């Protein structure tokens, strides 16, 4: 694991457009410094609603630079599929981690911190901290 390599971010949603849009939002809000590799894995391969193990493993491979991959998920089968893939041991790149965070806010925090060169622990912590931001 080289010191320069950035943590990759995978965004898993039941919906392709949701995953794509959240990725776009997070990269956009991270501004010009958004250098961390981000990949969306939303919906099923045929464009329907659901979770695809295939799209998730492909996305994780795409963003893996050797510094670990933070996987953010929305709900239900997205959570369970990532957990099941991690339990397999060899399905996701080494250093992949399911990050317990709100999907949209966590994605923004993860992309910003990963782009700043933070390690996986720091990226996961920043994403998780988004839970503590109350809206009223």
């Amino acid at each position, binding site marked *: 694991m080289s010191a320069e390599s950035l943590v990759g971010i995978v965004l898993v949603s039941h919906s392709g457009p949701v995953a794509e849009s959240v990725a776009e939002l997070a990269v956009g809000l991270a501004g010009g410094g958004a250098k961390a590799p981000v990949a969306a894995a939303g919906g099923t391969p045929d464009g329907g609603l659901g979770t695809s193990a295939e799209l998730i493993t492909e996305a994780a491979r795409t963003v893996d630079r050797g510094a670990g991959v933070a996987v953010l998920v929305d709900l239900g089968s997205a959570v369970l*599929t990532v957990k099941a893939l991690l*339990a397999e041991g060899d399905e996701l790149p080494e250093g992949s981690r399911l990050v317990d965070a709100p999907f949209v806010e966590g994605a923004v925090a993860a992309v910003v911190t990963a782009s700043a060169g933070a390690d996986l622990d720091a990226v996961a912590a920043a994403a998780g901290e988004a839970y503590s931001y109350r809206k009223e």
Partner: protein
Amino acid sequence: MTETALDAALFVRWMQAAAALVDREAERLTELDSPIGDADHGSNLQRGFTAVAKALEAEPPVTPGAVLTTAGRQLISTVGGASGPLYGTLLRRTGKTLGDAPGVTAEELRAALRGGVDAVAQLGGSAVGDKTMLDALDPAVEALGTSFAAAAEAAEKGAVDTTPLQARKGRASYLGERSKGHQDPGATSSALLFAALAEVTA
């Protein structure tokens, strides 16, 4: 309970029988999933078990453990809903426990399935009584100590008995009290798995 070893061929027949039952009951599973779920349980499982049957036919594994790990892997990658990782984990954990043995006893299968069911509970963070697959799987594994037929009966009863329960996990749990009065689709499909096992061991 007989001590005759159950071999890989029997496990392949088990998965094929499960695929056939899921195929036959797909419409009913989706109907059950309509009021309290997202109306895709039947079609999701149908896609998953069709892939399982195809994979086992293309390259029949030589041990019972490998049959179940292959089947589990297919379910995780093809189902597309929460039941994929849940059934996948059930079969993979059970298969891994059975290891490389060319044949297993009914008691070895029962013990391995117990571990598989516990893994499902852990993955889903759920317990018996939450109106999930576990309400059929748990009593089935308990009854497996008696016979395969008893396990199938216990699973079916467990599935039917989910009707008055309030869902505590998954999409149905958002409905709160309104989830009562519907039989759980996951428990219903779990019963099919044990019906298939009873069918091929009869």
